[in-house]
């Protein structure tokens, strides 16, 4: 009976349950007024563990204003993997936090599954940088709620002072020299890396590729004109891991240290510098006051030959709206986003302590200086940074570069082997997606 059933399932043709409701490409959507009554309408919003509390305030305010119900569903970490698994079973939210870079939009078949958000009432309110985000094939799918940031080095201000470093490094070589000075001044870990958690390793690796990214590396990668295995890439990845190679240049527990350890080490002064994104400051904000953070933590962007910051955004920066096939709920989801990013936006950034991405709305007080400096605009103003794209933003898929580089730091792979493994996975994913040339 069972084999018959399965055979029937396949003979009658089957499709991925996550796209069953996909309809004709939507016509330009109408945008209901934020206070349109929605009694009895239920919206489901998926969040990651790290963004679980982000929509709490706006959801409550929207419920009160419209009579709708907004159910917040926390998908356990790893968010992207588990959300995709949930989608594969046919479950579908009305809205979810999602990284809206092309490589990540590809994994949920944006054009079939998502509501296009072109013409949204909040769009003109955004700054120019944010207007360019969340786009695939000239269609906006992402509602940007938080500024992207640039990757960079978060450092302990007291240690820099102790080592007599008065100006931030302006190249990879100067970075190495600064680390040496920190070591000479007795700093326990000039660099503090967390290969135990693996994912933090991607930041240093990606920054080392910043100049290649500016030269169009990811575009060439997508068309099989370039490869992670190229000497130019391997040289830069090697330059990154070489920073940690010499005894005493990196934390002794580099193989098992975690993201949480990095925060503690940066504040205690055990660490000199850490390659990171602003997640590190977000983590510290839970435990330390603004004054403590501002007195202890500094930031600068870095690239092989300068201070160009590599842009980074994740699921915390944007939401997508699903095409569920239920027009009432689809319109309600658009109404909710409009409310969030227009009427409620000043309250929202005040609640969350986010940097404003709407020029007409001032950022709230109480944001750490390192956070302000790590926005694309802040980094441009203070360090002359020209933001370059990250792998997630420009590559057509997202191989596990972080995992392979963590293996280099754990002594299991050479940079060449890590690059080869990354390239092999990139090609495997490209083939799975049916990209020409792979």
């Amino acid at each position, binding site marked *: 009976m069972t084999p018959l059933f399965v055979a029937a399932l396949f003979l009658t043709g089957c499709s991925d349950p996550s796209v069953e409701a996909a309809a004709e490409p939507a016509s330009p959507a109408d945008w209901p007024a934020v206070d349109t009554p929605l009694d009895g309408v239920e919206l489901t919003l998926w969040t990651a563990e790290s963004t679980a509390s982000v929509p709490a305030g706006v959801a409550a305010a929207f419920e009160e204003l419209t009579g709708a119900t907004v159910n917040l569903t926390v998908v356990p970490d790893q968010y992207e993997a588990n959300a995709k698994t949930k989608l594969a079973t046919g479950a579908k939210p009305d809205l979810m936090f999602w990284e809206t870079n092309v490589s990540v939009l590809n994994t949920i078949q944006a054009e079939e599954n998502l509501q296009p958000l072109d013409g949204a009432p909040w769009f003109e309110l955004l700054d120019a940088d944010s207007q360019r985000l969340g786009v695939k094939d000239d269609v906006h799918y992402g509602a940007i709620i938080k500024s992207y940031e640039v990757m960079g080095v978060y450092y302990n201000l007291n240690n820099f002072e102790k080592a007599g470093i008065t100006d931030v490094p302006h190249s990879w070589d100067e970075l190495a020299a600064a680390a040496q000075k920190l070591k000479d001044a007795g700093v326990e870990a000039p660099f503090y890396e967390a290969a135990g958690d693996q994912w933090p390793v991607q930041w240093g690796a990606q920054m080392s590729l910043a100049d290649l990214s500016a030269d169009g590396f990811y575009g060439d990668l997508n068309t099989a004109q370039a490869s992670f295995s190229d000497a130019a890439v391997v040289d830069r990845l090697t330059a990154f891991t070489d920073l940690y190679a010499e005894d005493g240049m990196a934390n002794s527990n580099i193989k098992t240290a975690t993201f949480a350890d990095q925060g503690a080490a940066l504040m205690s002064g055990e660490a000199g510098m850490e390659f990171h994104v602003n997640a590190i400051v977000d983590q510290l904000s839970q435990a330390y006051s603004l004054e403590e953070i501002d007195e202890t933590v500094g930031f600068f962007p870095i690239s092989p030959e300068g201070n160009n910051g590599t842009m980074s955004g994740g699921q915390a920066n944007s939401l997508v709206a699903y095409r569920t096939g239920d027009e009432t709920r689809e319109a309600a989801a658009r109404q909710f986003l409009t409310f969030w990013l227009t009427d409620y936006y000043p309250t929202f950034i005040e609640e969350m302590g986010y940097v404003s991405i709407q020029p007409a709305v001032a950022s709230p007080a109480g944001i750490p200086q390192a956070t302000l400096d790590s926005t694309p605009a802040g980094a441009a103003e203070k360090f002359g940074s020209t933001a370059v794209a990250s792998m997630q933003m420009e590559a057509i898929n997202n191989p596990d570069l972080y995992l392979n580089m963590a293996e280099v730091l754990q002594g299991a792979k050479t940079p060449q082997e890590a690059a080869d493994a990354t390239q092999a996975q990139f090609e495997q994913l490209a083939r*799975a997606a049916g990209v020409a040339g792979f």
Partner: protein
Amino acid sequence: MTTLTRSSTSASTAPQSPRRVPRGRNRHPWWFLLPAFAFIIVFFALPVAANFVFPFTNWSTFHSDIRFVGFDSFADVLGDGSLANSLRTTLVYAVLVAIFSNVFGLALALLLERDTRVNRFGRAAFFLPVLMSALATGYVFQAILKADGALNSALALLAGQPVDIEWLGSMDWTIVVAALVHTWKWVGMNMLIFLAGLKNIPTDSLEAASIDGASRWQSLRLIKIPLLAPAFTFNIATGLLSTLNSFDVIQALTGGGPARSTEVLNIFIFRTFGSGLYAQSTAMSLVLFLVVVVLAIPVIGFLRGRERAMS
């Protein structure tokens, strides 16, 4: 006399009556089985059958159609060395757990064999981890074993100097540590099986041995262990085969690290599924299923043969 003959005739026919009128059919209509069958079909048979179909498709998160593509997914997963690596790690892990859980399970059973109050408490205490959540076990041991965790602090107290052994940071030894944690979680079950086996050993054999002057070691080696053969069969077979399918403890403890040295196949499958390559991950789980089947038959056959030889 006649009466007697009659009664003996009726007595001799009596045992046949259940066969002529099957009692089971009257008391339990066949459709009583339907809910159980429905449950088994939906939650067991269908997924298993699907697992034989999906590996031959191109199912992924990147497009909506699902087409048959033959053996492409198998070529994909066998192409790079990751699958072989994870398979090797899985086998090493399963063998280590099988060895540890039998050695420690037997030792505990022998230690707690006599029915004293202390022993009954000991049995309950060692059985307690079996009831714990496997993920909780993994996370608790992660906290204990980290460089600045409780174990190193305790060792430092004994040694009188700081100890910073990376218990979970060794490419070679962390898998052994993980196997020990897994054993800690399940050893209570092995202990119970061995205890049940020990209780079944006839006391007269042991008494006869002791009258003949056998030492405790001799009666353990020559009487108890041979008579525990069925318990060994059960413990080794279930230990080995269930550990091949293990995921939870090791995922919580190391997540497969450091550098994938503890990445058992199920973690690899989980990671591949999470990256959206659904066909490839189902191909891997089919490979795992085949490995379990291929291992189960000879292992159980060998242990059964050993039981017969020993009894």
